[in-house]
């Protein structure tokens, strides 16, 4: 399959920017070496990034809540094949509306190799709420700072290197609609996926009296019961929250899947 197989179809309404080394696999990734999930607030351009990378033309619209179920596609970059999942846009991973649950369940149990958090550079503060929450669940994160052209037009300047330092994960400025920054984004995804880039995600400072002690105890109980889960501390926090979904996952033992060496879904991995 040529790297431009997707360009032939449909005459291309978008100014097609060729990304060297990117092979868009459309709907049929076949086997894959890694799973990449796109998370982010509503209306930050997740679907646009998704279309850029897969060559698919999922409908995009300028309103929050457009992607409700998750969409899937595939791409290959630098010899690795990826399955790409476009998650519904959410403002947080805390409450349990159906779309937030789809997003959180996938980040947690779908065991993506990399989670790309697509953020709106014009409203970064609000977008960081979600990014910080994702960083509590998984460490392999790339932040895509999208809509930087609009931010520039609005007089907003973001210190990308500083932000990356604060979050402990790569931050890539993009204009997904124009295809700007896609190579850098792919490089970051590749780097995190193969372990070339090491992430040290920022952990939340939770200054609630008594919480640290309770978390320490519960975390050790969780790891004692289910093995050394990477998200043990987060699971403990959610249990203290009284999170129904997580409580249920502990009760049924489903939570142990988080620590399994080979995720249950990866039967098709090559």
């Amino acid at each position, binding site marked *: 399959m040529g790297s431009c197989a997707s360009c032939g179809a*449909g*005459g291309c*309404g*978008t100014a097609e920017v060729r990304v060297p080394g990117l092979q868009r696999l459309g709907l049929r990734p076949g086997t894959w070496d890694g799973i990449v999930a796109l998370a982010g607030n509503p*209306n930050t351009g997740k679907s646009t990034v998704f279309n850029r990378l897969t060559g698919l*033309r999922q*409908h*995009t619209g*300028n*309103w*929050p*809540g457009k992607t409700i179920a998750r969409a899937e596609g595939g791409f290959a970059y630098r010899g690795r094949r990826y399955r790409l999942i476009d998650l519904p846009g959410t403002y*947080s991973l*805390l409450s349990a*509306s*159906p*779309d937030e649950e789809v997003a959180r369940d996938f980040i947690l149990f779908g065991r993506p190799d990399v989670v790309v958090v697509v953020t709106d550079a*014009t409203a*970064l*503060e*609000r977008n*960081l*709420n979600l990014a*910080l*929450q994702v960083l509590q669940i998984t460490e392999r994160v790339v932040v895509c700072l999208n809509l930087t052209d*609009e931010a520039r*037009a*609005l*007089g*907003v*300047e*973001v*210190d990308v290197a*500083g*932000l990356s330092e*604060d*979050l402990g994960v790569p931050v890539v400025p993009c204009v997904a*609609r124009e295809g700007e920054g896609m190579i850098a984004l792919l490089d970051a995804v590749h780097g995190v996926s193969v372990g070339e880039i090491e992430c040290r995600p*920022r952990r*939340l400072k*939770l*200054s*609630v009296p*008594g919480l640290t002690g*309770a978390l320490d*105890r*519960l975390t050790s*109980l*969780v790891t*004692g*019961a*289910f093995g050394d889960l990477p998200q043990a501390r987060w699971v403990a926090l959610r*249990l*203290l*929250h*009284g999170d129904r979904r997580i409580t249920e996952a*502990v*009760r*049924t*033992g489903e939570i142990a899947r988080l620590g399994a060496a080979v995720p249950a879904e990866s039967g098709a991995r090559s």
Partner: protein
Amino acid sequence: MRAGESDAAGAVLDAARELGWHLPPDLNDRITEAIYAESSEIAGRRIRRRGGSLRLAWQETLDRILTGRWTGIPVMLLLLGSVLWVTIVGANYPSALLADLLLNRGWHLLREAAHAMGVPGWLGGITVDGMYLTTAWVVSVMLPPMAIFFPIFTILEDFGYLPRVAFNLDRIFKAVGAHGKQALTMSMGLGCNAAGVVACRIIDSPRERLIAIVTNNFALCNGRWPTQMLIASVFVGGLFPPVLGGFAAAGAVLLVAGLGFALAWLASLVLSRTVLRGEASTFSLELPPYRPPNILRTFYTSIIDRTIFVLFRAVVFALPAGAVIWLTANVQVGGQSLAYWMVAALDGPGWWLGLNGVILVAYIVAIPANEIVIPTVLMLTVLLTGQTGAGPGVMFEVDDADRFRQILAAGGWTALTGVCLMIFSLCHNPCSTTIYTIWRETRSAKWTVLATLLPFVPGVILCVLIACVWRAMAA
């Protein structure tokens, strides 16, 4: 400890409950606050703002107009009205062209070809006169308005206007105990009710989601826009001098679409006072920034995702429907065709509704797809009034609105029939795809049946009322 719970899991859960008692009761709020505080701290450190952006000022001005208390709704009506007017006026020419190509020439060509190849009469009847002609009808009636309407609609969506519509309507829906986001799902329903029903997932509260799902069909969907536009331009536009006809027709369609929102509002009111009682929950609706729409991509997505998608669906349903229509018109029972008996049986109820038997039969045939109502109506009318230039069960060519009016006038249609058909087209059962989607989303036979039958209530009441008043005034 419950069944299915391992000892270790039980211990973890017990410990969590136990430890939870010693933590502040507002733990959730505190954690949320901690996240917000960190976001704000990071953002404060890493973002610099240059003051006085021209773009920001421009966006704020636009929002003041588009979502203003007094300007929001009038501007919305004006915008939608203009889109309808452009569609109605603009669709005339390509429609006539397509009708000439597909109905006049294409159909004659196929007939002659079938004849030359010695295809038996009944087979030629089913395929050429039934299936081909119905499909050709669907294409020539539906393609032009869709090809104009959807790109404009998509440009508005890309630009960021849809959430503003929801914002304008939010207060109105909230007042009746429905969710403000219902305005957004209704706006989606203007494209396709099945999509609108799926979009109801963005509403968190199950009670409000049900209200939104059950009432979504009151949003005039793209299967019905062409019907509305066609009937409005023939029967409403025809009442005015030609210069004003387009405006009057657009106004009438806008009125029907507005009536749909009013009925959804009323139905939500009734539902939230009776079977789905409760208070409206609050939510925050984000108004996204205005973005310059990417015109080329908009055309691509609206043509592929919407126009071709809808047309394809219509064609898929039109093919078998065409065969069925031809058969009902040609299978004789007791000296008359099957279609005759069906129409005769429904003429009575049809009269009360200001409609006729033909229309009701068409709505039964068109349960799978609203798109084929008009072609079916035309074919049956032609057949039963003996206007056939081409043998029974054949939809013949209609190359302009005037000809179209003549056919229907011969079938006994008046302006009353047109008006009642517009109302009935708004208020009848959802198409089968939407019904299936409602079931899939609710997993409840009860709510599916309610959503299917609810639209008939205002539909029947309004049609009977209009018919009675109209006839009383005419008498």
